[in-house]
Protein backbone atom coordinates (compact mmCIF):
# COMPACT_ATOMS: atom_id res chain seq x y z
CA UNK A 1 0.00 0.00 0.00
CA UNK A 2 1.47 3.37 -0.94
CA UNK A 3 2.11 5.89 1.85
CA UNK A 4 2.84 8.81 -0.45
CA UNK A 5 1.23 9.49 -3.80
CA UNK A 6 2.43 12.40 -5.87
CA UNK A 7 0.55 13.08 -9.08
CA UNK A 8 1.40 15.58 -11.81
CA UNK A 9 3.26 17.78 -9.34
CA UNK A 10 4.64 21.03 -10.77
CA UNK A 11 5.72 24.48 -9.67
CA UNK A 12 6.70 27.67 -11.49
CA UNK A 13 8.68 30.59 -10.12
CA UNK A 14 7.78 33.47 -12.39
CA UNK A 15 8.50 32.03 -15.81
CA UNK A 16 10.77 29.30 -14.55
CA UNK A 17 9.32 25.81 -14.40
CA UNK A 18 11.31 24.34 -11.52
CA UNK A 19 9.47 21.03 -11.31
CA UNK A 20 7.13 19.66 -13.93
CA UNK A 21 4.67 16.75 -14.03
CA UNK A 22 6.29 14.67 -11.31
CA UNK A 23 4.64 11.39 -10.36
CA UNK A 24 5.83 9.30 -7.46
CA UNK A 25 4.38 6.40 -5.52
CA UNK A 26 6.20 5.42 -2.37
CA UNK A 27 5.34 2.18 -0.61
CA UNK A 28 4.98 2.01 3.13
CA UNK A 29 8.22 1.02 4.85
CA UNK A 30 10.41 1.47 1.80
CA UNK A 31 13.64 3.42 1.49
CA UNK A 32 13.56 5.45 -1.69
CA UNK A 33 16.18 7.70 -3.23
CA UNK A 34 15.59 10.94 -5.13
CA UNK A 35 18.67 11.76 -7.14
CA UNK A 36 19.71 14.11 -9.85
CA UNK A 37 22.40 16.61 -10.77
CA UNK A 38 22.68 19.94 -8.96
CA UNK A 39 19.74 22.21 -9.68
CA UNK A 40 17.49 19.36 -10.82
CA UNK A 41 14.73 20.46 -8.42
CA UNK A 42 15.14 17.84 -5.69
CA UNK A 43 14.96 20.23 -2.75
CA UNK A 44 12.06 22.03 -4.43
CA UNK A 45 10.18 18.72 -4.37
CA UNK A 46 10.86 18.43 -0.63
CA UNK A 47 9.72 22.00 -0.10
CA UNK A 48 6.44 21.22 -1.85
CA UNK A 49 5.95 17.99 0.09
CA UNK A 50 6.44 19.85 3.39
CA UNK A 51 4.31 22.89 2.54
CA UNK A 52 7.14 25.43 2.30
CA UNK A 53 6.14 26.03 -1.31
CA UNK A 54 2.64 25.64 -2.62
CA UNK A 55 2.70 23.62 -5.87
CA UNK A 56 1.30 25.35 -8.96
CA UNK A 57 -0.40 22.12 -9.95
CA UNK A 58 -0.68 18.45 -9.08
CA UNK A 59 -1.59 16.53 -5.97
CA UNK A 60 0.12 15.16 -2.87
CA UNK A 61 -1.51 12.50 -0.72
CA UNK A 62 -0.09 11.03 2.46
CA UNK A 63 -1.87 7.87 3.51
CA UNK A 64 -4.80 9.04 1.41
CA UNK A 65 -4.91 12.49 3.05
CA UNK A 66 -4.64 15.50 0.74
CA UNK A 67 -1.74 17.76 1.71
CA UNK A 68 -2.09 20.53 -0.86
CA UNK A 69 -2.67 23.92 0.81
CA UNK A 70 -1.58 22.75 4.24
CA UNK A 71 0.99 24.69 6.23
CA UNK A 72 4.34 23.13 7.20
CA UNK A 73 3.26 22.55 10.80
CA UNK A 74 0.03 20.90 9.67
CA UNK A 75 2.00 18.66 7.34
CA UNK A 76 4.29 17.74 10.21
CA UNK A 77 1.20 16.80 12.20
CA UNK A 78 -0.06 14.76 9.24
CA UNK A 79 3.14 12.73 9.44
CA UNK A 80 5.96 14.10 7.28
CA UNK A 81 9.21 15.11 8.94
CA UNK A 82 12.30 16.44 7.21
CA UNK A 83 15.90 17.51 7.53
CA UNK A 84 17.49 20.40 5.67
CA UNK A 85 20.33 20.55 3.21
CA UNK A 86 21.89 23.45 5.11
CA UNK A 87 21.46 22.18 8.67
CA UNK A 88 18.76 24.00 10.62
CA UNK A 89 19.10 23.19 14.28
CA UNK A 90 17.93 25.21 17.26
CA UNK A 91 21.55 26.12 17.69
CA UNK A 92 21.45 27.92 21.04
CA UNK A 93 19.45 25.14 22.67
CA UNK A 94 20.83 21.91 24.09
CA UNK A 95 20.89 18.69 22.11
CA UNK A 96 18.22 17.26 24.40
CA UNK A 97 15.96 20.30 24.03
CA UNK A 98 16.21 20.12 20.25
CA UNK A 99 14.66 16.67 20.36
CA UNK A 100 12.15 17.73 23.00
CA UNK A 101 10.83 20.41 20.64
CA UNK A 102 10.11 17.52 18.29
CA UNK A 103 8.09 15.86 21.06
CA UNK A 104 6.12 19.07 21.74
CA UNK A 105 2.93 17.91 20.04
CA UNK A 106 3.09 14.38 21.41
CA UNK A 107 3.73 14.80 25.12
CA UNK A 108 1.62 17.69 26.32
CA UNK A 109 0.65 19.64 29.38
CA UNK A 110 -1.22 22.96 29.56
CA UNK A 111 0.24 26.49 29.83
CA UNK A 112 -0.74 26.46 33.50
CA UNK A 113 1.74 23.65 34.06
CA UNK A 114 4.43 25.60 32.24
CA UNK A 115 3.96 28.72 34.36
CA UNK A 116 3.56 27.07 37.74
CA UNK A 117 5.54 23.85 37.18
CA UNK A 118 2.53 22.17 38.67
CA UNK A 119 0.03 19.51 37.67
CA UNK A 120 1.44 17.00 35.23
CA UNK A 121 4.50 19.16 34.51
CA UNK A 122 7.08 17.05 36.32
CA UNK A 123 5.71 13.74 35.11
CA UNK A 124 5.43 14.81 31.47
CA UNK A 125 8.84 16.49 31.43
CA UNK A 126 10.36 13.28 32.76
CA UNK A 127 8.56 11.33 30.08
CA UNK A 128 9.92 13.74 27.46
CA UNK A 129 13.47 13.43 28.80
CA UNK A 130 13.32 9.65 28.65
CA UNK A 131 11.83 9.54 25.21
CA UNK A 132 14.32 12.10 23.87
CA UNK A 133 17.28 10.24 25.34
CA UNK A 134 16.00 7.02 23.85
CA UNK A 135 15.96 8.61 20.38
CA UNK A 136 19.36 10.25 20.92
CA UNK A 137 20.81 6.88 21.88
CA UNK A 138 20.07 5.49 18.43
CA UNK A 139 22.38 8.18 17.05
CA UNK A 140 24.99 7.85 19.78
CA UNK A 141 24.17 11.36 20.89
CA UNK A 142 22.88 10.57 24.38
CA UNK A 143 26.25 11.40 25.95
CA UNK A 144 26.12 14.87 24.36
CA UNK A 145 22.60 15.67 25.50
CA UNK A 146 23.57 18.72 27.60
CA UNK A 147 25.76 20.26 24.91
CA UNK A 148 24.58 23.25 22.92
CA UNK A 149 23.59 22.08 19.46
CA UNK A 150 25.88 24.64 17.83
CA UNK A 151 28.86 23.11 19.63
CA UNK A 152 28.35 19.64 18.17
CA UNK A 153 30.74 18.51 15.45
CA UNK A 154 29.29 18.73 11.96
CA UNK A 155 28.52 15.04 11.49
CA UNK A 156 26.67 14.87 14.78
CA UNK A 157 24.65 17.97 13.89
CA UNK A 158 23.31 16.13 10.86
CA UNK A 159 22.40 13.19 13.05
CA UNK A 160 20.69 15.45 15.58
CA UNK A 161 18.54 16.87 12.84
CA UNK A 162 17.37 13.36 11.98
CA UNK A 163 16.76 12.62 15.67
CA UNK A 164 14.63 15.75 16.01
CA UNK A 165 12.63 14.81 12.93
CA UNK A 166 12.01 11.32 14.31
CA UNK A 167 10.75 12.78 17.59
CA UNK A 168 7.69 14.05 15.72
CA UNK A 169 6.78 10.39 15.09
CA UNK A 170 6.54 10.73 11.31
CA UNK A 171 5.13 8.23 8.85
CA UNK A 172 7.46 9.55 6.18
CA UNK A 173 10.93 10.94 6.77
CA UNK A 174 12.53 13.19 4.16
CA UNK A 175 16.32 13.47 4.33
CA UNK A 176 17.91 16.22 2.28
CA UNK A 177 21.51 15.22 1.48
CA UNK A 178 22.16 13.69 4.88
CA UNK A 179 25.74 12.79 3.92
CA UNK A 180 26.71 16.18 2.52
CA UNK A 181 30.12 17.25 3.76
CA UNK A 182 30.92 13.89 5.35
CA UNK A 183 33.97 11.77 4.65
CA UNK A 184 33.52 8.23 3.23
CA UNK A 185 33.78 6.59 6.67
CA UNK A 186 31.19 8.88 8.21
CA UNK A 187 28.96 8.40 5.19
CA UNK A 188 29.10 4.63 5.43
CA UNK A 189 28.26 4.83 9.12
CA UNK A 190 25.35 7.21 8.44
CA UNK A 191 23.91 4.91 5.80
CA UNK A 192 23.90 2.10 8.36
CA UNK A 193 22.15 4.35 10.84
CA UNK A 194 19.51 5.25 8.28
CA UNK A 195 18.74 1.60 7.68
CA UNK A 196 18.59 1.03 11.41
CA UNK A 197 16.20 3.97 11.80
CA UNK A 198 13.84 2.49 9.27
CA UNK A 199 13.66 -0.80 11.13
CA UNK A 200 13.55 0.64 14.64
CA UNK A 201 11.01 3.41 13.97
CA UNK A 202 9.08 1.68 11.21
CA UNK A 203 9.27 4.82 9.12
CA UNK A 204 9.27 5.22 5.35
CA UNK A 205 12.28 7.19 4.11
CA UNK A 206 12.76 9.33 1.02
CA UNK A 207 16.26 10.69 0.71
CA UNK A 208 17.97 13.13 -1.60
CA UNK A 209 21.54 12.53 -2.66
CA UNK A 210 23.44 13.45 -5.70
CA UNK A 211 26.04 10.79 -5.16
CA UNK A 212 24.40 7.91 -7.01
CA UNK A 213 26.66 5.14 -5.76
CA UNK A 214 25.76 5.98 -2.22
CA UNK A 215 22.05 5.81 -2.76
CA UNK A 216 22.17 2.63 -4.75
CA UNK A 217 23.75 0.93 -1.73
CA UNK A 218 20.73 1.30 0.51
CA UNK A 219 17.70 2.36 -1.52
CA UNK A 220 15.28 -0.14 -2.96
CA UNK A 221 13.89 2.24 -5.49
CA UNK A 222 15.22 5.40 -7.10
CA UNK A 223 13.69 8.40 -8.87
CA UNK A 224 16.02 10.43 -11.07
CA UNK A 225 15.25 14.09 -11.62
CA UNK A 226 16.79 16.33 -14.27
CA UNK A 227 15.76 19.89 -15.11
CA UNK A 228 12.68 19.47 -12.92
CA UNK A 229 11.41 16.41 -14.79
CA UNK A 230 11.56 12.74 -14.09
CA UNK A 231 14.37 11.24 -16.10
CA UNK A 232 14.06 7.67 -14.93
CA UNK A 233 12.81 5.49 -12.11
CA UNK A 234 13.40 1.93 -11.03
CA UNK A 235 15.61 -0.29 -8.94
CA UNK A 236 19.18 0.95 -8.42
CA UNK A 237 20.40 -1.54 -11.01
CA UNK A 238 17.94 -0.39 -13.66
CA UNK A 239 18.69 3.28 -13.02
CA UNK A 240 22.45 2.86 -13.00
CA UNK A 241 22.32 1.19 -16.38
CA UNK A 242 19.94 3.73 -17.89
CA UNK A 243 21.75 5.48 -20.75
CA UNK A 244 19.91 8.79 -20.21
CA UNK A 245 20.86 8.85 -16.54
CA UNK A 246 24.49 8.23 -17.38
CA UNK A 247 24.43 11.05 -19.93
CA UNK A 248 22.78 13.46 -17.50
CA UNK A 249 25.41 12.76 -14.88
CA UNK A 250 28.51 12.55 -17.03
CA UNK A 251 27.51 14.85 -19.85
CA UNK A 252 27.98 13.97 -23.50
Amino acid at each position, binding site marked *: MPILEVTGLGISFGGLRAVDDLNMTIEKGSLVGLIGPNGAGKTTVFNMLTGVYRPTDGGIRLDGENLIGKKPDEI*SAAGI*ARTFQNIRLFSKMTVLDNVKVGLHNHIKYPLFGSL*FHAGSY*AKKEKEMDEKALEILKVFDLDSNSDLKAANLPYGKQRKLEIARALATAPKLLLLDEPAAGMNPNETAELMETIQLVREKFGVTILLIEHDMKLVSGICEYIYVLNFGRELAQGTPKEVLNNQEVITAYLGE
Partner: protein
Amino acid sequence: MKRKLISKKNIISVAIIAVLYILIQVLINGGYLSRQMMSVIIPLCYNVIMAVSLSLIVGVLGELSLGHAAFMSIGAYSSALFTTKFELPEFIALPLALIIGGLCAAALGFIIGIPVLRLKGDYLAIVTLGFGEIIKSIFNFLPITGGSKGLSGIPIYTSYRNFGLVFLITAVIVLLIKNLLDSRHGRVFAAIRDNSIAAQATGIPVGTYKTMAFVIAAFFAGIAGVLYAHNVGILKPGNFDYNMSIEILVMVVLGGMGSIGGSIIAAVILTLLPELLRSFADYRMLLYAIVLIALMLFNNSSLKKKLIEKRQMSRQEKSEKEGE
Protein backbone atom coordinates in the same frame (compact mmCIF):
# COMPACT_ATOMS: atom_id res chain seq x y z
CA MET B 1 17.78 14.97 34.99
CA LYS B 2 15.88 15.05 38.25
CA ARG B 3 12.63 16.87 38.10
CA LYS B 4 10.93 17.57 41.34
CA LEU B 5 8.48 20.25 42.19
CA ILE B 6 10.71 21.44 45.02
CA SER B 7 13.96 21.26 43.11
CA LYS B 8 17.26 22.66 44.36
CA LYS B 9 16.99 25.52 41.88
CA ASN B 10 13.58 26.57 43.17
CA ILE B 11 14.72 26.45 46.78
CA ILE B 12 17.67 28.69 45.92
CA SER B 13 15.42 31.18 44.11
CA VAL B 14 13.02 31.32 47.02
CA ALA B 15 15.93 31.77 49.45
CA ILE B 16 17.38 34.63 47.40
CA ILE B 17 13.98 36.30 47.25
CA ALA B 18 13.46 35.93 51.02
CA VAL B 19 16.89 37.34 51.83
CA LEU B 20 16.36 40.27 49.47
CA TYR B 21 12.99 40.95 50.99
CA ILE B 22 14.30 40.95 54.56
CA LEU B 23 17.25 43.12 53.56
CA ILE B 24 15.09 45.78 51.95
CA GLN B 25 12.59 45.70 54.80
CA VAL B 26 15.41 46.26 57.30
CA LEU B 27 16.69 49.13 55.17
CA ILE B 28 13.26 50.73 54.98
CA ASN B 29 12.23 50.27 58.59
CA GLY B 30 15.62 51.07 60.03
CA GLY B 31 15.54 54.40 58.27
CA TYR B 32 18.72 53.67 56.32
CA LEU B 33 17.28 54.81 53.05
CA SER B 34 17.13 58.41 52.01
CA ARG B 35 13.81 59.74 50.88
CA GLN B 36 15.09 59.67 47.34
CA MET B 37 15.93 55.97 47.61
CA MET B 38 12.53 55.22 49.16
CA SER B 39 10.90 56.74 46.13
CA VAL B 40 12.67 54.36 43.70
CA ILE B 41 11.83 51.18 45.56
CA ILE B 42 8.50 50.66 43.82
CA PRO B 43 9.78 51.82 40.39
CA LEU B 44 12.51 49.23 40.85
CA CYS B 45 9.85 46.54 41.09
CA TYR B 46 7.77 47.55 38.10
CA ASN B 47 10.85 48.12 35.98
CA VAL B 48 12.00 44.59 36.82
CA ILE B 49 8.61 43.26 35.70
CA MET B 50 8.81 45.29 32.50
CA ALA B 51 12.33 44.12 31.73
CA VAL B 52 11.62 40.48 32.47
CA SER B 53 8.43 40.44 30.40
CA LEU B 54 10.08 42.20 27.46
CA SER B 55 12.92 39.73 27.74
CA LEU B 56 10.38 37.05 26.89
CA ILE B 57 9.63 38.75 23.56
CA VAL B 58 13.06 40.07 22.62
CA GLY B 59 15.46 37.67 24.26
CA VAL B 60 13.56 34.40 24.16
CA LEU B 61 11.22 34.72 21.17
CA GLY B 62 13.73 36.86 19.27
CA GLU B 63 11.31 39.53 18.05
CA LEU B 64 12.20 43.18 18.39
CA SER B 65 9.48 45.19 20.13
CA LEU B 66 9.73 48.95 20.57
CA GLY B 67 6.27 49.35 22.08
CA HIS B 68 6.40 47.61 25.42
CA ALA B 69 5.41 50.80 27.25
CA ALA B 70 2.04 50.65 25.46
CA PHE B 71 1.11 47.48 27.35
CA MET B 72 2.09 49.17 30.57
CA SER B 73 -0.04 52.20 29.75
CA ILE B 74 -3.09 50.06 29.01
CA GLY B 75 -2.67 48.29 32.32
CA ALA B 76 -2.20 51.60 34.11
CA TYR B 77 -5.17 53.41 32.53
CA SER B 78 -7.65 50.56 32.65
CA SER B 79 -6.94 49.80 36.30
CA ALA B 80 -6.88 53.47 37.28
CA LEU B 81 -10.25 54.03 35.60
CA PHE B 82 -11.58 51.09 37.54
CA THR B 83 -10.26 52.16 40.94
CA THR B 84 -11.24 55.82 40.54
CA LYS B 85 -14.75 55.08 39.29
CA PHE B 86 -15.76 52.32 41.71
CA GLU B 87 -14.03 53.32 44.93
CA LEU B 88 -14.08 49.87 46.48
CA PRO B 89 -12.14 49.06 49.64
CA GLU B 90 -8.45 48.55 48.90
CA PHE B 91 -8.30 44.82 49.61
CA ILE B 92 -10.92 44.21 46.90
CA ALA B 93 -9.95 47.00 44.55
CA LEU B 94 -6.24 46.22 44.21
CA PRO B 95 -6.52 42.53 43.28
CA LEU B 96 -9.29 43.35 40.83
CA ALA B 97 -7.25 46.22 39.42
CA LEU B 98 -4.29 43.90 38.88
CA ILE B 99 -6.45 41.42 37.01
CA ILE B 100 -8.20 44.09 34.93
CA GLY B 101 -4.92 45.80 34.03
CA GLY B 102 -3.29 42.53 33.09
CA LEU B 103 -6.21 41.33 30.99
CA CYS B 104 -6.66 44.62 29.10
CA ALA B 105 -2.96 44.65 28.28
CA ALA B 106 -3.13 41.01 27.22
CA ALA B 107 -5.99 41.86 24.88
CA LEU B 108 -3.83 44.52 23.23
CA GLY B 109 -1.02 41.97 23.07
CA PHE B 110 -3.35 39.73 21.11
CA ILE B 111 -4.18 42.55 18.67
CA ILE B 112 -0.50 43.33 18.18
CA GLY B 113 -0.01 39.63 17.62
CA ILE B 114 -1.78 39.95 14.27
CA PRO B 115 0.94 41.99 12.49
CA VAL B 116 3.50 39.95 14.36
CA LEU B 117 2.38 36.96 12.33
CA ARG B 118 3.20 38.71 9.08
CA LEU B 119 6.12 40.99 9.81
CA LYS B 120 9.71 40.40 10.72
CA GLY B 121 12.64 42.22 12.22
CA ASP B 122 12.81 45.95 11.63
CA TYR B 123 9.32 46.11 10.15
CA LEU B 124 7.86 44.55 13.24
CA ALA B 125 9.91 46.93 15.37
CA ILE B 126 8.42 49.98 13.68
CA VAL B 127 4.90 48.57 13.89
CA THR B 128 5.22 47.96 17.62
CA LEU B 129 6.56 51.49 17.97
CA GLY B 130 3.61 52.70 15.93
CA PHE B 131 1.13 50.83 18.12
CA GLY B 132 2.68 52.51 21.14
CA GLU B 133 2.24 55.94 19.60
CA ILE B 134 -1.33 55.15 18.52
CA ILE B 135 -2.28 54.13 22.05
CA LYS B 136 -0.61 57.25 23.41
CA SER B 137 -2.55 59.51 21.04
CA ILE B 138 -5.82 57.79 21.86
CA PHE B 139 -5.31 58.34 25.59
CA ASN B 140 -4.45 61.91 24.76
CA PHE B 141 -7.67 62.28 22.82
CA LEU B 142 -10.26 60.47 24.92
CA PRO B 143 -12.13 62.61 27.47
CA ILE B 144 -12.47 59.67 29.87
CA THR B 145 -8.69 59.42 30.34
CA GLY B 146 -8.37 63.13 30.97
CA GLY B 147 -6.58 63.87 27.72
CA SER B 148 -3.19 65.49 27.93
CA LYS B 149 -4.00 66.87 31.39
CA GLY B 150 -3.91 63.30 32.54
CA LEU B 151 -5.90 61.09 34.86
CA SER B 152 -5.47 62.12 38.46
CA GLY B 153 -6.84 61.20 41.85
CA ILE B 154 -5.82 57.57 41.55
CA PRO B 155 -5.76 55.92 44.99
CA ILE B 156 -2.22 55.21 46.15
CA TYR B 157 -2.24 51.48 46.85
CA THR B 158 1.33 50.67 45.96
CA SER B 159 3.50 53.18 47.78
CA TYR B 160 6.62 52.01 49.59
CA ARG B 161 4.43 51.35 52.62
CA ASN B 162 2.99 48.49 50.66
CA PHE B 163 6.41 47.35 49.55
CA GLY B 164 5.92 43.81 50.82
CA LEU B 165 2.99 43.17 48.51
CA VAL B 166 4.60 44.81 45.49
CA PHE B 167 7.77 42.82 46.08
CA LEU B 168 5.78 39.62 46.32
CA ILE B 169 3.98 40.32 43.04
CA THR B 170 7.29 41.06 41.35
CA ALA B 171 8.90 37.91 42.71
CA VAL B 172 5.98 35.74 41.62
CA ILE B 173 6.06 37.18 38.09
CA VAL B 174 9.80 36.63 37.81
CA LEU B 175 9.39 33.04 38.99
CA LEU B 176 6.51 32.39 36.58
CA ILE B 177 8.57 33.62 33.63
CA LYS B 178 11.58 31.63 34.78
CA ASN B 179 9.35 28.57 35.02
CA LEU B 180 7.93 29.24 31.59
CA LEU B 181 11.37 29.22 30.01
CA ASP B 182 11.96 25.74 31.42
CA SER B 183 8.82 24.20 29.95
CA ARG B 184 7.44 22.92 26.67
CA HIS B 185 6.05 26.35 25.83
CA GLY B 186 9.27 28.20 26.63
CA ARG B 187 11.25 25.71 24.58
CA VAL B 188 9.07 26.41 21.60
CA PHE B 189 9.62 30.19 21.93
CA ALA B 190 13.37 29.64 21.92
CA ALA B 191 13.10 27.24 18.98
CA ILE B 192 11.23 29.87 16.96
CA ARG B 193 14.00 32.38 17.75
CA ASP B 194 16.76 29.98 16.75
CA ASN B 195 15.17 28.81 13.52
CA SER B 196 11.54 29.48 12.76
CA ILE B 197 11.57 27.48 9.52
CA ALA B 198 12.84 24.40 11.32
CA ALA B 199 10.38 24.99 14.17
CA GLN B 200 7.48 25.02 11.72
CA ALA B 201 8.76 21.92 9.99
CA THR B 202 8.91 20.28 13.43
CA GLY B 203 5.17 20.82 13.78
CA ILE B 204 5.12 24.08 15.71
CA PRO B 205 2.36 26.51 14.64
CA VAL B 206 4.79 29.43 14.77
CA GLY B 207 2.14 32.17 14.56
CA THR B 208 0.11 30.82 17.47
CA TYR B 209 3.13 30.66 19.72
CA LYS B 210 4.41 34.10 18.76
CA THR B 211 1.02 35.55 19.65
CA MET B 212 1.02 33.57 22.88
CA ALA B 213 4.39 35.05 23.89
CA PHE B 214 3.14 38.56 23.14
CA VAL B 215 -0.04 38.00 25.15
CA ILE B 216 1.84 36.63 28.17
CA ALA B 217 4.43 39.44 28.09
CA ALA B 218 1.66 42.03 27.66
CA PHE B 219 -0.26 40.62 30.61
CA PHE B 220 2.71 41.04 32.95
CA ALA B 221 3.54 44.49 31.55
CA GLY B 222 -0.09 45.42 32.24
CA ILE B 223 0.37 44.41 35.87
CA ALA B 224 3.50 46.58 36.02
CA GLY B 225 1.27 49.38 34.73
CA VAL B 226 -1.21 48.82 37.57
CA LEU B 227 1.61 49.07 40.11
CA TYR B 228 2.84 52.22 38.38
CA ALA B 229 -0.56 53.92 38.29
CA HIS B 230 -1.27 53.27 41.96
CA ASN B 231 2.20 54.41 42.93
CA VAL B 232 2.35 57.78 41.20
CA GLY B 233 -1.36 58.60 41.44
CA ILE B 234 -1.51 60.53 38.17
CA LEU B 235 -1.22 59.27 34.60
CA LYS B 236 -0.15 61.27 31.59
CA PRO B 237 -0.02 59.74 28.12
CA GLY B 238 3.38 61.36 27.53
CA ASN B 239 4.90 59.18 30.25
CA PHE B 240 4.48 56.10 28.08
CA ASP B 241 6.24 57.24 24.93
CA TYR B 242 8.74 55.28 22.93
CA ASN B 243 11.62 56.56 25.06
CA MET B 244 10.26 54.44 27.86
CA SER B 245 9.99 51.38 25.61
CA ILE B 246 13.56 51.94 24.56
CA GLU B 247 14.76 52.29 28.14
CA ILE B 248 13.29 48.88 28.90
CA LEU B 249 14.77 47.44 25.75
CA VAL B 250 18.18 48.69 26.83
CA MET B 251 17.73 46.82 30.13
CA VAL B 252 17.01 43.60 28.28
CA VAL B 253 19.94 43.97 25.91
CA LEU B 254 22.41 45.00 28.58
CA GLY B 255 21.24 42.15 30.78
CA GLY B 256 22.27 39.72 28.07
CA MET B 257 19.52 38.72 25.69
CA GLY B 258 17.22 36.08 27.10
CA SER B 259 18.83 35.97 30.52
CA ILE B 260 16.20 36.64 33.18
CA GLY B 261 18.75 37.22 35.92
CA GLY B 262 20.66 39.60 33.69
CA SER B 263 17.51 41.56 32.86
CA ILE B 264 16.74 41.94 36.56
CA ILE B 265 20.23 43.18 37.38
CA ALA B 266 20.22 45.58 34.44
CA ALA B 267 16.77 46.88 35.41
CA VAL B 268 17.93 47.52 38.98
CA ILE B 269 21.14 49.24 37.90
CA LEU B 270 19.49 51.38 35.26
CA THR B 271 16.73 52.44 37.65
CA LEU B 272 19.20 53.36 40.37
CA LEU B 273 21.82 54.90 38.11
CA PRO B 274 20.01 58.19 37.41
CA GLU B 275 19.39 58.57 41.15
CA LEU B 276 22.99 57.83 42.03
CA LEU B 277 24.23 60.20 39.36
CA ARG B 278 21.94 62.97 40.53
CA SER B 279 24.88 64.99 41.82
CA PHE B 280 26.22 65.09 38.28
CA ALA B 281 22.91 66.65 37.28
CA ASP B 282 23.16 67.59 33.62
CA TYR B 283 25.98 65.22 32.86
CA ARG B 284 24.19 62.06 33.90
CA MET B 285 22.34 61.46 30.65
CA LEU B 286 25.50 62.17 28.70
CA LEU B 287 27.33 59.71 30.90
CA TYR B 288 24.55 57.19 30.42
CA ALA B 289 24.85 57.55 26.66
CA ILE B 290 28.60 57.07 26.73
CA VAL B 291 28.34 54.05 29.01
CA LEU B 292 25.71 52.56 26.72
CA ILE B 293 27.84 52.95 23.59
CA ALA B 294 30.99 51.76 25.35
CA LEU B 295 29.21 48.67 26.72
CA MET B 296 27.82 47.71 23.32
CA LEU B 297 31.22 48.17 21.71
CA PHE B 298 32.92 46.16 24.44
CA ASN B 299 30.30 43.39 24.32
CA ASN B 300 31.02 42.81 20.67
CA SER B 301 34.74 43.49 20.65
CA SER B 302 37.56 41.09 20.02
CA LEU B 303 38.90 42.04 23.44
CA LYS B 304 35.92 40.40 25.11
CA LYS B 305 36.22 37.32 22.93
CA LYS B 306 39.86 37.00 23.96
CA LEU B 307 38.96 37.36 27.64
CA ILE B 308 36.32 34.66 27.34
CA GLU B 309 38.73 32.37 25.56
CA LYS B 310 41.32 32.94 28.24
CA ARG B 311 38.83 32.10 30.96
CA GLN B 312 37.75 28.94 29.20
CA MET B 313 41.36 27.91 28.73
CA SER B 314 42.18 28.37 32.38
CA ARG B 315 39.04 26.51 33.34
CA GLN B 316 39.99 23.65 31.08
CA GLU B 317 43.47 23.54 32.56
CA LYS B 318 42.00 23.51 36.01
CA SER B 319 39.66 20.63 35.28
CA GLU B 320 42.48 18.74 33.64
CA LYS B 321 44.64 19.20 36.72
CA GLU B 322 41.81 18.03 38.91
CA GLY B 323 41.39 15.00 36.73
CA GLU B 324 45.00 13.96 37.24
